[in-house]
């Protein structure tokens, strides 16, 4: 029995180790390639002969990365701020207020969340273009100040876990709904709000379709994702530089994750079907 237990332990833990490596090794290879010399990066060598840490600086000369970084930050930060302003009250209304049509509204939110962005792209592009705003970041940011289906959904899920009695107590104490939201629900839902903000930031940071649609023809307005997709083609043989840029684009998400691992995991489990 104990031998069987030991063998089982070994089997499970080697599988775990293999999985960990499978997920981590690609990033290690990217890092190793990023610090190789131009000529070595083109070969099958896996280990750098010399460590060219300067590649990470060189990419800033090869492309206006700071500008793209600025655009990416502008898009992600503004969108996240706008999302918080619009989605927190909407989620509160869906989770904590009784009103007719609330169930129907929730279904519309879920529907909008699952609608592929390509379905609505043509009329939206047409509308933004007639406003003369294609080629800018406006079409990407403005919608978040009104509505973001996924964030409303996620925030509602979090707010449902706050006992209704707290809200009722606040009402009895003479709070307006706005005060109940601001003083009771928001402080209690802070981890959920943090998770939602992280997801919104990440989604916009990683977004490719939106920037491709609206800003691809105006290189000054490119975001990092868009710039990265052209970088490999423009610097055909320079794998090391391409991978250095790739790492720089991945970095913010990894840093965010390091600081807010709990929020991420909480948020992910809430996107699923956990109550």
């Amino acid at each position: 029995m104990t031998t069987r237990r030991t063998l089982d332990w070994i089997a499970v833990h080697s599988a775990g180790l293999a999985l960990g490596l499978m997920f981590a090794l690609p990033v290690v290879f990217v890092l190793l390639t990023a610090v190789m010399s131009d000529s070595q990066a083109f070969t099958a060598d896996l280990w750098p002969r010399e460590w060219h840490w300067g590649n990470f600086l060189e990419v800033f000369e090869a492309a206006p990365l700071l500008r793209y970084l600025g655009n990416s930050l502008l898009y992600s930060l503004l969108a996240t701020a706008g999302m918080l302003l619009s989605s927190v009250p909407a989620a509160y209304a869906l989770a904590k207020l009784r009103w007719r049509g609330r169930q129907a509204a929730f279904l519309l939110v879920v529907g909008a969340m699952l609608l592929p962005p390509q379905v609505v792209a043509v009329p939206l592009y047409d509308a933004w273009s007639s406003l003369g705003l294609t080629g800018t970041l406006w079409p990407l940011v403005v919608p978040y100040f009104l509505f973001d289906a996924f964030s409303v959904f996620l925030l509602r899920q979090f707010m449902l876990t706050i006992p209704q009695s707290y809200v009722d107590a606040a009402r009895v104490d003479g709070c307006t709904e706005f005060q109940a939201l601001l003083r009771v629900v928001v402080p209690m839902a802070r981890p959920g709000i943090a998770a939602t903000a992280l997801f919104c930031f990440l989604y916009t940071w990683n977004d490719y379709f939106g920037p491709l649609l609206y800003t691809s023809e105006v290189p000054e307005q490119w975001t990092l994702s868009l710039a990265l997709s052209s970088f490999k083609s423009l610097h055909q043989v320079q794998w090391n530089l391409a991978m250095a840029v790739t790492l720089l684009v991945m970095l913010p998400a990894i840093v965010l994750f390091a600081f807010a691992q709990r929020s991420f995991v909480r948020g992910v489990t809430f996107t699923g079907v956990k109550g």
Partner: protein
Amino acid sequence: MTATLDRARAARTSPPPGRSRTRRRLTALAFTAPAALGFTLFFAYPLVATVGFSFTRYDLINPPEWAGLANYAYMLGDDLFWTSVRNTLWFVVVLTSARVAFALGVASVIARLRSGVGLVRTLCYLPSLTPPVAATLVFFLLMRPNEGPVDAFLGWFGVEGPLWFADPAWAKPGIAAVVLWVSGDLMIIILAAILDVPREQHEAAELDGAGALRRWWHVTLPSISPVLLFGVVNSIVLALQLFTQAVVAGSAASGAADVTGSTKNIGFPENSTLTFPVWLYTQGFRYFDMGYASAMATVLFVASFAATALLVRRLRRATPQEEG
């Protein structure tokens, strides 16, 4: 004592139920007004407009011209439309089953780990934070013919790798590999569900003499089947939208040095990466055939709606029913 008094005073001074109901209704209205406006402007209106545009010829410059069912008729004879349908169906079938099976497998292993759980879970989740463009380029590096680490690894076993992203037979599996690598979120969801299975059920099965594998099959799997269904529908929706990885893989493999401009990199190699959204995008935003793109978008909407309807029914049963 003072608390009771406060409570009593508050109850006396709180507004009568009728007025408070009206006020609450107005609050609901105020809180949801921006969202309602946003929903109308960015989802409802464009959805209706897409269907409308699908019956027209429209190039963004000249006003739309009524064309009846011409776009849909053209679709039937458009070889690349059918290619894109086939490619997307490939992803719906292969990617969905692979993604759910893979996430389930990884989650099942992590759930049984006694030490290093946190580290392995973190490593599994980290790739899903990677921007899709970056993740695709990473795999493009790993799967370089002859020079990449994957081919080096295969070389140990005397296997010579294919041309990967430049080979029409391997480009789609390559893209699927990228998506599997970044499916950490589904793994975490399934892992949470597995850890939520009551211990007593496992203990009861163990007393009955069931081994680990049988307990996994007879206790764990049935308990987490709602989450697996969520995974299936979620993966179908994902597969129907597959765009970024296909565009980036195609253009990186073709070596075409542009983001918009030419269309020679679209679907490279031999249209094997031409997914439905990619062909839709090409028609609308590179050929400026907005009518045809809208017709394709309408078809995509119908397909997604079928999957969505399934998920909504599922979610209604699985999300907590609010009491407020």
